[in-house]
């Protein structure tokens, strides 16, 4: 479970339960996550997306963390200083490589603030 990792705890991330096959992660706003005044730090939003992908793969495989190969992020809207949510989807689970994507939203899931695509290596 990603929420037990020291890094997710540093960001205050918790799980708000399954939606379909994968967990929805929630990150409450905190002064320590702020970038420019009044907005969430972009790197923190990206980290939440990445943790959602890792969590989805770990849930699917039931074994330790896959290795990140690379990840691309698009930032669609400024992140306000309110609760943020993220959920990943496994696009393809191969023998060695997983392709996943994730979205991050705040008040309205239909208005994502960022999206990410990730490749992960399975051991």
């Amino acid at each position, binding site marked *: 479970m990603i929420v037990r*990792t020291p*890094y997710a705890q540093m960001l205050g991330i918790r799980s708000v339960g399954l939606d379909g096959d994968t967990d929805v992660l929630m990150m409450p706003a905190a002064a320590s996550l702020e970038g420019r005044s009044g907005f969430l730090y972009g790197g*923190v939003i*990206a980290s939440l997306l990445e943790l959602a992908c890792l969590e989805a793969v770990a849930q699917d495989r039931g074994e330790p963390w896959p290795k990140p190969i*690379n990840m691309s992020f698009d930032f669609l809207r400024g992140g306000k200083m309110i609760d943020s949510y993220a959920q990943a989807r496994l696009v393809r689970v191969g023998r060695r490589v997983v392709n996943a994507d994730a979205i991050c939203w705040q008040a309205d899931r239909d208005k994502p603030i960022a999206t990410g695509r990730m490749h992960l290596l399975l051991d």
Partner: protein
Amino acid sequence: MDEEDAFERLKNLPPRGHHALLGIYNVDHGPDWAELACPFAPGFLMDADAGLVSSGPIISLVDAAAGSAIIARTRQWRPMATLDLHIDYLRPARAGHSLHARAHCHHITRKVAFTRCDVHDGDPQAPIATATASFFFTDES
């Protein structure tokens, strides 16, 4: 030192927000680049027993270094937003090692700045990640 210079102003700002949480500090800079670093912290770990370091702090450090490189090049204090970021993880970061990110701002248009960034954890010859990021100036000029 030029009191009006945006990069000098940036360098001397007290850390706040997520920069303060990660302990990000300035290492060096040039006319179109900036190197930032942050010390290792136990909160960076994914798995304390295995010493596995999360890539999250690396992304945040890249974002910070790229923004600094743009201000190093433009010498202007323009509000900007990260448009996109791509990161390749070349090898795992080692627990207990400081992270260093050196970003170059290699091109600027009226509204967009393009950057590249190399990240290492002690040996610049053995990078742990490379990244590209573009930024959009949100002001009206």
